């Protein structure tokens, strides 16, 4: 990619071009804070926790934070595609659970590792296909459809496993969790690759343009020959596929495929997208914003843990941050 990605970096470039005086002027405006909520929040958290906790900025902690963030980063990117079309995928974490269970069951049945991965991804994609077809062709509200598949996929995972976790111990998964390039773990590299490919797809391809167009105005897009139904099915499929990728990383991390509900991932993936400055009404695609949002939420949880704040306070803090970010988006420039 020879040029910078327009949507995400536009603020940065304009700030660099303008002098210090106008940069200060921008800072005084609420819209500046609104458009850069995720990076500003992340920097603020890093500074605050860096001062309060001596461990926070150590290499080891940064490494573990990045690894902890990798699944959420992938899910946030996935959710961002759906939300850009003006939809929402409430089934994302249940899809991940089903993907993990599909992978676990396949591996337990002595199927080759990579084939098991494919089965895991396929079982996740099945949920995405159902979501997409019901929403695009059945014209059912996204909220209701994905709420339904959230429940259905969770139930299916429980039925298939009879509610028990499937222990998966494979050398490949061990490499996935422990392997590094330099000091960066494989999960982080996978998440970064997902982010880079997603940014390319969203901002550099015809499909990405159509995703944003359908989210902006389905009527106008269709009048210009965009096949909105296909685009909608595709974003739910992409979302589910990435949830499947997250599922493999999750199994690798836990060492088992658990039929757990993982509600935290669902809420945090939406929260990260909102923090990243994506409007829930769709139309403006963003990838780096949601990634920064995911990093922020992970840093928040990590910092609070390091400061021995009871984990009971973490949802409270996350809720506070998300509502604040949502409030700030009201002041975003159109």
């Amino acid at each position, binding site marked *: 990619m020879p040029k910078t990605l327009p949507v995400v970096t536009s603020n940065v470039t304009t700030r660099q071009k303008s002098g210090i005086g106008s940069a200060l002027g921008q800072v005084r405006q609420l819209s500046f804070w609104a458009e850069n909520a995720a990076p500003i929040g992340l920097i603020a958290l890093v500074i605050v926790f860096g001062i309060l906790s001596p461990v926070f900025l150590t290499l080891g902690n940064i490494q573990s934070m990045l690894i902890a963030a990798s699944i959420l980063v992938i899910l946030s990117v996935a959710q961002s595609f759906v939300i850009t079309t003006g939809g929402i995928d409430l089934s994302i974490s249940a899809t991940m659970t089903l993907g993990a269970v599909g992978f676990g069951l396949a591996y337990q049945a002595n199927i080759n590792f990579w084939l098991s991965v494919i089965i895991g991804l396929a079982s996740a994609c099945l949920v995405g296909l159902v979501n997409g077809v019901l929403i695009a062709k059945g014209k059912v509200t996204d909220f209701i459809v994905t709420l339904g598949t959230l429940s259905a996929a969770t139930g299916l995972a429980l039925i298939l496993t009879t509610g028990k976790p499937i222990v998966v111990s494979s050398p490949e998964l061990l490499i996935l969790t422990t392997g590094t390039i330099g000091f960066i773990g494989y999960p982080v590299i996978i998440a970064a690759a997902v982010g880079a490919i997603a940014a390319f797809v969203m901002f*550099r*391809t015809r499909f990405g343009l159509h995703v944003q167009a359908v989210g902006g*105005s389905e*009527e106008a897009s269709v*009048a210009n020959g965009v096949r909105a139904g296909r685009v909608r099915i595709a974003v739910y499929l992409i979302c589910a596929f990435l949830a499947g990728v997250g599922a493999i990383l999750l199994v690798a991390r836990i060492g088992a495929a658990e039929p757990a509900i993982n509600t935290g991932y669902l809420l945090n993936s939406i929260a990260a997208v909102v923090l990243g400055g994506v409007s829930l009404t769709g139309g403006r695609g963003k990838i780096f914003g949601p990634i920064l949002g995911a990093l922020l939420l992970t840093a928040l949880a990590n910092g609070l843990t390091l400061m021995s704040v009871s984990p009971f306070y973490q949802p409270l803090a996350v809720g506070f941050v998300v509502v604040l970010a949502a409030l700030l988006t009201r002041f975003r420039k159109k």
Partner: protein
Amino acid sequence: MTTPSNDYILTATDIVKTFGGVNALRGANLTMRRGEITALIGDNGAGKSTLVRCLSGIHQPDSGTITLDGQVVTFSTPLAAREAGIETVHQNLALVEDLTVWQNFFLGREKTRGFGPIRWLDSRRMKRESAVLLADLAVNAPPVTNRVRRLSGGQRQAVSIARAAGWGSKIVIMDEPTAALGVQETARVEAVITRLKEQGVAILLISHNFDQVLRLADHVWVMRGGLAVAERRTAHTSGDELVSLITGALAS
């Protein structure tokens, strides 16, 4: 009523369209001459929109023939009409506000480059081409990297018209292009329409504004009750005559 000749870029003959018992079109006719602006006027419910929608492929007529450039055509989709060379500027303009001008310009017809199945948008080329097409038509052309949300009504209209004109189209249909605009913006859009005519594109103009019709168009078709009841050369008619043709006070 008229005899087909090579002079006509488009003829629609005996177009019938019924919607669940309502006869929107009862055998309407329309001709458009090459290189001219043809106006289509009529009261609300006269069938103008339905006829236009049949020409732009949104509706399929129950019967009747449409001849484009000497060939009988049928359009199953708006895309088919577009591919045949009929572009429509809808009243709502069909622009996506969150996208930039150039993205809207090429929406659905993006230029890509790359190798094999891996292709990406040729943004530079699309920006350049849309800027040229826009500058050719409009004096107050907005920068193509602006988002449509930030454009004025007249600029949006110009973008929409330039987009319709930019594909080597034979006919551009405009549905009330200045209905929502102020005086200055209307003048600018009319300049765009005139400029487009000078480029040799035949234009079908749906308008309620008789002054505008008399000012811009070469030929007028009047519709009433699902039929094309009269046609006039604008040089040989007046606003009063058009009003009486529309209301039926004057027989064709």
